[in-house]
């Protein structure tokens, strides 16, 4: 069990939870979170928003029974963390774009932070798409060269993929699909990485409910992903 340090709303239906743990995370990884006994049956896979030596933060959207329980947790309460899981985003440099939609913006914070730290000469632009109230924009601005915010429209309209060497994205499948197609249509040479948000059960690669059927065969979003190459999923 891990102790909760902070847990507060950052926008309608979105909360940020900071938890004490030294398990850390690589950019793009997730934890299985559980703050109850037997019910609900499944733990919840939640992306890592940020981490330092002794804490991990999660940005999550309150969508149902499990995340409602998370929302009601107070600092000092305990939560069961299992992880980190998944492959995470690969290292990248050059002109980098990070494109997120909704709660899919969560892994882009640590991703921008780590990429800028490893490659100060690279540029990292972040495109955030919100259907409602924007959140944490100032936080993202601290980590990136430029942040573009889209509220209520299509974040994929804002980006010119030809300006980038690498594009990394997380969000609704339709958003990532449109982005991938835009790269193809514009002849952009950018390498595209997508982070899949499939429903999961075990979270450790055993149960095969989160399988993505890709060009390179079936892949488990939890174990072989969540990050995959754009062509594998949408090519």
């Amino acid at each position, binding site marked *: 069990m891990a102790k909760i340090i902070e847990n507060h709303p950052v926008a309608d239906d979105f909360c940020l939870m900071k938890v004490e743990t030294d398990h850390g995370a690589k950019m793009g990884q997730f934890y299985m979170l559980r703050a109850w006994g037997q019910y609900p*049956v499944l733990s919840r896979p939640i992306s890592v928003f940020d981490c330092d030596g002794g804490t991990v933060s999660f940005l999550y959207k309150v969508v149902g029974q499990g995340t409602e329980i998370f929302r009601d947790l107070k600092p000092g309460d305990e939560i069961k963390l299992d992880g980190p899981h998944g492959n995470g985003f690969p290292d990248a440099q050059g002109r980098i774009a990070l494109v997120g939609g909704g709660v899919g913006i969560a892994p882009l914070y640590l991703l921008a932070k780590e990429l800028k730290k490893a490659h100060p000469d690279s540029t990292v632009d972040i495109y955030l798409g919100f259907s409602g109230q924007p959140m944490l924009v100032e936080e993202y601005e601290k980590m990136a060269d430029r942040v573009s915010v889209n509220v209520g429209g299509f974040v994929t309209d804002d980006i010119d993929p030809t300006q980038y060497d690498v594009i990394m994205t997380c969000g609704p499948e339709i958003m990532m699909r449109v982005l991938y197609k835009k790269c193809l249509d514009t002849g952009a040479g950018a390498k595209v990485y997508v982070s899949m948000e499939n429903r999961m059960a075990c979270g450790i690669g055993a149960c095969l409910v989160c399988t993505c059927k890709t060009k390179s065969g079936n892949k488990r979003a939890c174990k072989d992903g969540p990050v995959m190459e754009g062509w594998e999923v949408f090519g």
Partner: protein
Amino acid sequence: MSKRLETVFAGVTFKNPVALASGTCGFGREFNEYFDIQKLGGLCSKGLTLRPCLGNDGIRVWETASGVMNSVGMENPGVQHFIECDLERMNALDLVNIVNLGGHSEEDYLEGVALLNQHPLDLLELNISCPNTKAGCMSFGLQAEVARDIVRKVRAVCKHKLVVKLSPNAENITALARACEEEGADGLSLTNTYQAMAIDIQRRRPVFDNVYAGLSGPAIKPISLRMVHQVAHAVSVPVMGIGGITTWQDAIEFIMAGASIIQIGAANFMDPTIALDIIDGMERFLEDNHITNISEIRGVV
């Protein structure tokens, strides 16, 4: 650990009567990263089919009140791949290696059995109960005479100890169980998942591409317990009890209902190490009640 939990099932000795159920634990690799899976009595492989199977499209999992529905659809690498990549490792482990074999047709089953005949394993669990494929599998497990026919044909060629895994969707579970016994099954396991459904009311469509899915988890426990009780009292071959077992108390209930072995399925998703808690709890219960071996309470109800 004492020998209180040691159980002999169809001539195969389990150091404890707790196995992980097929489809919830892959081929043991991932769980072995959490704990030494040799602490388990047994492990049932992911359901295999003769040829590799990519599984179903669309959403594959949906949570319900006290349960979970799945529509994986038998995704697996195929029998030959399993033989080449996993079988030897699983045989080398100090646990009972239970290989689960499904099929889309009679030929699939018979050819799968023929391939597995050439290699050692502890128990072959014949899956005639998966509800998630369009063709085959559960269609062999609904009517007693259909089940009788496939079990007879498999028995005629199968060199391994044969456990038939039954569907709770069967028309008459005890008649079907008796038919399997009469055709030479060495044991039975039950239940597989219950055919179930969810609807996406915004889209006015079923949640699952395959329309129906398989319900498991604590929600099904009382019904599976009832069926294990009925079947265990209707046949003389040993029975493995499956269905929503989450605590050691649940496990003891299934033993008292007549199961020799119990399998943990959906509860593995609550906590990958839950089987260890169940084993410890069962051991303590026997000790506290001065029971020398678990067989003393098997079928007492």
